[in-house]
């Protein structure tokens, strides 16, 4: 099947996984919060886009104009109203509250939309492809998604390292108590962090739903894929998350080449191997495992 082809397809697949992971990485990096509902928010974004496209006739990518602000506000509100109160209680409250949110979203979507599978339709771009030397065909859409992932991570890097807000995020991530002593309002900052994370979650949700069918129960696997990309790449490093996504994608592509049913399993196995051999990931910045 050509190893080069597997490498390329797998790497491009890594783009969407990296996009899944960005939001999770942010909320862990800044708030030390592993959002169990993260995958469900990705799926929720897809459903919001579904409603918007059906209601306005916009195509999915254009619908982002509405979906992104909606998810931003939702993220801000949930952090401010709910999750901020869990941060001082130790391990259990954030985990169980986000778990509860996950169950509520899944069952809410089930009650609202039914268990039918859905897809968003963007048109010709979904199947367009370009040929490169070597007889390999690259899908335009996966290339686009990968490019979006790179741009997204690049923007976040700029935010974190070149702006005052990013400086505040990094300070709070280092030492939340001292950050407050510097005049930073942690509660607002956390809410803003989840809001921004939701922007990327929304983009990931819409982009994935164009190529993949989804239903209310599609959240958990997305969480797991995002989680695997973050762990493989190493906590605290956004570019590491991209590389983690690529490695995950390539592992899945290898598995898929052996047999289509092996795709997801191959990714899990690669993740577990890396976990056992190098638990802090490939490019860790923090050591908070």
């Amino acid at each position: 099947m050509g190893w080069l082809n597997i490498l390329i397809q797998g790497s491009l697949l890594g783009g969407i996984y990296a996009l899944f992971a960005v939001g999770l990485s942010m909320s862990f990096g800044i708030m030390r919060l592993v959002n169990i509902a993260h995958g469900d928010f990705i799926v929720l974004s897809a459903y919001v886009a579904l409603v918007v496209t059906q209601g306005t006739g916009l195509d999915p990518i254009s619908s982002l104009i509405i979906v992104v602000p909606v998810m931003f506000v939702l993220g801000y509100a949930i952090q401010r109203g709910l999750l901020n109160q869990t941060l001082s209680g130790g391990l259990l409250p954030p985990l169980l509250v986000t778990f509860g949110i996950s169950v509520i979203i899944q069952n809410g979507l089930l009650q609202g939309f039914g268990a039918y599978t859905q897809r968003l339709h963007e048109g010709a771009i979904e199947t367009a492809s370009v040929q490169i030397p070597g007889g390999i065909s690259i899908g335009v859409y996966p290339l686009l998604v990968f490019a979006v992932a790179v741009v997204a991570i690049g923007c976040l890097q700029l935010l974190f390292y070149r702006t005052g807000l990013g400086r505040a995020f990094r300070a709070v991530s280092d030492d939340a108590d001292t950050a407050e002593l510097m005049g930073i309002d942690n509660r607002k900052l956390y809410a803003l962090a989840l809001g921004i994370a939701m922007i990327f979650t929304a983009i990931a949700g819409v982009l994935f739903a164009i190529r993949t069918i989804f239903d209310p129960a599609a959240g958990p696997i997305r969480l797991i894929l995002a989680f695997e990309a973050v762990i493989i790449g190493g906590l605290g490093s956004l570019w590491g998350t991209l590389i983690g996504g690529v490695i995950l994608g390539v592992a899945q592509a290898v598995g898929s080449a052996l047999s289509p049913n092996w795709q997801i399993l191959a990714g899990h196995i690669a993740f577990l191997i890396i976990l056992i051999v190098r638990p802090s990931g490939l490019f860790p910045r923090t050591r908070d495992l």
Partner: protein
Amino acid sequence: MSLLATKNLSAFYGDFQALFAINVSVEGGETVAIIGANGAGKTTFLRAVAGTLPTAAEMVTFDGEPIGHRTPHDIVRLGIAMVPEGRRLFPSLSVEENLLLGGHSERKGPWSLQRVYELFPRLRDLRHLPAPALSGGQQQMAAIGRALMANPRLLLCDELSLGLAPVVIRDIYQCLGAITAEGTTVVLVEQDINRALDASARFYCFQEGRLALTAPTKNFDRAAITAAYFGL
């Protein structure tokens, strides 16, 4: 009216009472020292003033305003800044980023990045290095500079001399003079009694959460201080 006044300030960590009805007042422009052994409640006192430890509103007043219940970031905006015990610079940030972060509250005043570098020239050379790369003394200077960037009216200094060599401590206390010359009020918490008393006009001695002694520092009998310090 005092700039800072605490009235029957009591503070608790859960069920444990760390401060018992502390009455302290600090006038504008003064430098006041708070001395006491480990566990005497000095850091707890500063945390109560800075807002990290919530207390009843009336127990701490700043310029007559009750602030005991206010959040730390609000208190910074009002004009109180802290140099925390152990420096607590942000390890992911460079020296300059740490200083800039100190200015987050955007209060107006005499201190700016330029002026902080004038006060601590060595920091300008080191400004792009990550904070953990600095020596203890340099980190202390950076921590002070970071607090100054908030243009505070009241500067709280928690154990400036902790873990530093005597010659470094001397340099730092010299800079303190330049700070108070701007009119900044300073509260110094120190275990090093001599440094603290030399730098301040008045002192308070804490002992196991209670106020054991307070007096002007000039010519005060050291034996009496020692007795109060150790609760003899």
